[in-house]
């Protein structure tokens, strides 16, 4: 009960302080809002693009073609060698024999075409198709080196994968993600600095009050509390605009853009509960930024 009374007394005191230093508080709130809005947008884009790259990555497979003359034992030996490679998902190795490949080709070809007639004429002995393993990898960045290792396995004829996607798209996405995070961290630092400044002025404005509090035997925790609560409020108030914008903006964009982001390749994540999670992250981030800023200043300037 005592703690609750102290807490609510300090909530009132923090709100009073925000209204007293309104212009500076507004500067902190606006800066927090801008930061959180950019963080929110970056988060939404990054989550949607991440979903796309994950799909892309999981669809990236290596086709391992085995010599067409390889015996059953040799084909099995290739599989054993593949299983020894760490980057290969051992539960996702799909084997297709020459006969299976012939059937697949036939089912995908028009029965009246010349190709159908040719393929259909292949027997067990003169089937030119090579048995293949379709494999997935764990780390997409190591796709090329994994393919190189596979190439060296005895009886492996050739290895194929979508080199363009791996070499061009994925590094671009990685760079975009890194740059986004650098900008976000920079903005967070600026916001913390502004909140520090607001709290520092509050401390100076209440210097005599703090001095009296110390002299009449009020604990350091209780002296610090209103400032930390003030920082918390600055962060929380700063989160209102970005949260509203992200929720409404994403729902509207989801409808207007027909569930696709920029291109039909990227399908947007469903708004619910996605926007709720993003909002919770923004609110928590606002609160943490506010509290870190104010606690740091209180420690520095109160020296108690």
């Amino acid at each position, binding site marked *: 009960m005592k703690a609750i*009374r102290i807490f609510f007394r300090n909530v009132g005191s923090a709100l009073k302080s925000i209204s007293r230093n309104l212009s500076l508080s507004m500067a902190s709130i606006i800066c927090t809002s801008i930061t959180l809005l950019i963080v929110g947008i970056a988060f939404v884009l990054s989550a949607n693009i991440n979903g796309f790259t994950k799909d892309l990555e999981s669809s990236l497979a290596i086709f391992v073609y085995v010599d067409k003359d390889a015996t059953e034992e040799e084909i099995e030996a290739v599989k054993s060698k593949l299983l020894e490679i760490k980057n290969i998902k051992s539960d996702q190795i799909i084997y297709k024999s020459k006969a299976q490949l012939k059937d697949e080709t036939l089912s995908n070809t028009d029965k009246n075409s010349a190709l159908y007639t040719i393929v259909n004429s292949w027997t067990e002995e003169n089937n030119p198709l090579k048995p293949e393993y379709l494999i997935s990898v764990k780390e997409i960045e190591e796709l090329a080196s994994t393919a190189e290792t596979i190439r060296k396995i005895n009886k492996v004829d050739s290895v194929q994968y979508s080199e363009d996607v791996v070499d061009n798209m994925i590094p671009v996405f990685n760079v975009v993600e890194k740059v986004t995070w650098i900008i976000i961290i920079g903005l967070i630092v600026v916001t913390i600095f502004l909140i520090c400044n607001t709290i520092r002025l509050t401390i100076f404005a209440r210097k005599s009050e703090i001095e009296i509090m*110390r002299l009449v035997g009020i*604990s*350091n925790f209780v002296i610090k509390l209103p400032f930390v609560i003030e920082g918390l409020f600055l962060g929380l108030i700063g989160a209102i605009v970005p949260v509203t914008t992200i929720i409404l903006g994403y729902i509207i964009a989801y409808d207007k853009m027909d569930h696709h982001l920029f291109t039909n390749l990227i399908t947007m994540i469903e708004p619910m509960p996605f926007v709720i999670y993003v909002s919770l992250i923004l609110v928590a981030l606002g609160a943490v930024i506010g509290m870190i800023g104010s606690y740091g200043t209180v420690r520095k300037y109160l020296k108690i």
Partner: protein
Amino acid sequence: MKFIDIKNCYKVYKNGVTAIADLTLSIDKGEFVFVTGASGCGKSTFVKLLYREEKPTKGQVWVGGINVAKLYNSRVYKLRRKLGIVFQDFKLLPKLTVYENVSFGLENTGMKQKEIKPLVLKALERVGLKEKIRSFPNQLSGGEQQRVCIARAIVNDPKVLICDEPTGNLDPKTSKEIMKVIANINKEMGTTVITVTHDKEIVNSLKKRVITLDNGVLANDTMKGKYTADESN
């Protein structure tokens, strides 16, 4: 061990000034003590050591069983809750009423309003200001403001009342009234009172124990003493 026990205490400031040198003295519970001496003799440093605004450079300072020299910053509030402090410049909060100034400390300890109210009213009654609870400091005379400061200091029934030049800003008549209030607190509540003062007349009229400091050294310590400090320094 006496209630306040100071043994071989030194206080040397960072600029090299020695404010207190080899001070050893003790004060009993319920005593009334004047601390006198010329300007810069270490009187204020002496009381600051008692409420741990300053830490001794060497030696021991015990107040009510607490070793002030070894007290962590985070624990200082525990010592100060046993003390009441009165200042020359009152240190009242101008935007708070008399009642709020006195209740300020208690409210911040999380006490309930219904527990705070009788304590505040009793303290204000003791200093003769019960009728002015709704006034603001700027509506009061200097003497009245000092009474509010005393009420704030005694509201939690402290073991020791430390008064640092309580009459320094007041005229002789008001000074006498304030000292009368402080003496009554000592007599009626049994509170140990330590008063730093320059006022020769007050010291001589009350005939209490007088501790005289000279350049940080204990120059004189007499029961029912008189003002002996050399003002020419």
